[in-house]
């Protein structure tokens, strides 16, 4: 939880990204603590903090290695940052390192979340808490809409009709018709892969 430990000692000179990584791989405890720290700093998403800690503060990976690792975790199913902790830890220290990073990322916030759940179960009916949470929910939905807009921008700029139609289709199937996720994805993924494959062939030809 202490934010004040390493950076001053480790960064004698400010250097750009992509320089050599530190030669000695970190120990299991160091991995656990580093991921616990970035997890607890990560309000509203851990990725920014993870990149900062791994690439800039500890120099455990170059910027390129980090991007590669994240891209892999992004297209695999599951929570991206959780996948990243396992893959990253395992790269440095084998499966034990993966588990250390995974546990560091998840254990402290899970404990906090459990305490919050207990508080909510006891006091969730108290009017003041209920009203405050309602206000936070409204703002949280607004934030989610903003993320959706930001992610849509490149598709809109390119007028990528195929992607926009696919996006709208998934939105309608899940958001409006409330169909089960598995069924929708079993149809949508092959259709999307097929459509993009054909489109790229056409562009190449």
């Amino acid at each position, binding site marked *: 939880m202490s934010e004040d430990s390493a950076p001053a000692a480790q960064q004698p000179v400010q250097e750009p990204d992509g320089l050599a990584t530190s030669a000695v791989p970190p120990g299991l405890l160091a991995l656990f603590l580093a991921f616990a720290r970035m997890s607890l700093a990560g309000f509203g998403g851990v990725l920014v903090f993870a990149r900062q800690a791994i690439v800039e503060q500890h120099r455990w990976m170059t910027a390129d290695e980090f991007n590669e690792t994240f891209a892999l975790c992004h297209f695999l199913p599951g*929570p*991206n940052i959780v996948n990243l902790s396992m893959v990253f830890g395992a790269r440095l220290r084998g499966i034990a390192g993966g588990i250390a990073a995974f546990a560091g990322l998840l254990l402290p*916030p899970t404990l*906090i*979340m459990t305490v919050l759940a207990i508080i909510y179960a006891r006091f969730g009916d108290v009017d003041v808490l209920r009203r405050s949470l*309602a206000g936070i*929910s409204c703002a949280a939905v607004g*934030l989610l*809409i903003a993320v959706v807009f930001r992610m849509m921008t490149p598709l809109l700029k390119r007028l990528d009709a195929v992607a926009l139609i696919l996006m709208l289709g998934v939105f309608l199937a899940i958001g409006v018709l409330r169909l089960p996720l598995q069924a929708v994805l079993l149809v949508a993924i092959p259709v999307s892969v097929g459509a993009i494959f054909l489109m790229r062939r056409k562009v190449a030809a």
Partner: protein
Amino acid sequence: MNAENPIWALISTFGLMSLFAVGGAAAAVPEMHRIAVEVHHWMTDKQFADAYAIAQLSPGPNVLIVTLIGYAVAGIPGALAATLAMCLPTALLAYYVSRLLNRPSQSRWPGLIQAALVPLSIGLMAASALILAESTDRTLAALLLTATVAVVASVSRINPLWILLVGGLLGFAGIV
């Protein structure tokens, strides 16, 4: 391990869900809502919206909304079971795939599949927003707050935590 055991129901539900959760935690929210509120009646609509708000406000990966769902179903064991079921199988999968892919190859399939998943995950997140908005934005003031936040957060780089706290204060004051 019978079908009635709530812990087992949590493990099988979230373990299976995580394997289909492309595009991260936000994209899985509609499915969590469908399972927790509509299929199993583990929570009410309002409780789900509250859980989402708490998960956003707390540190750590946003996927930990499953911890709150698990707690609502089966207390502390439920919270731990749901969290591990949602996070561990895909993390191990990622570990094995990354070992496999570390042998370098110039295949274009990873890039192609990734491009194909982008519109799907945006669609999923938009659906999350709609479902959550339906349960939270019951008044005009609430709808206005959501819309304002959507615009402000789209055009500025303000720290989301401040926005959430302002929302909490407005709710506390009884405005939304």
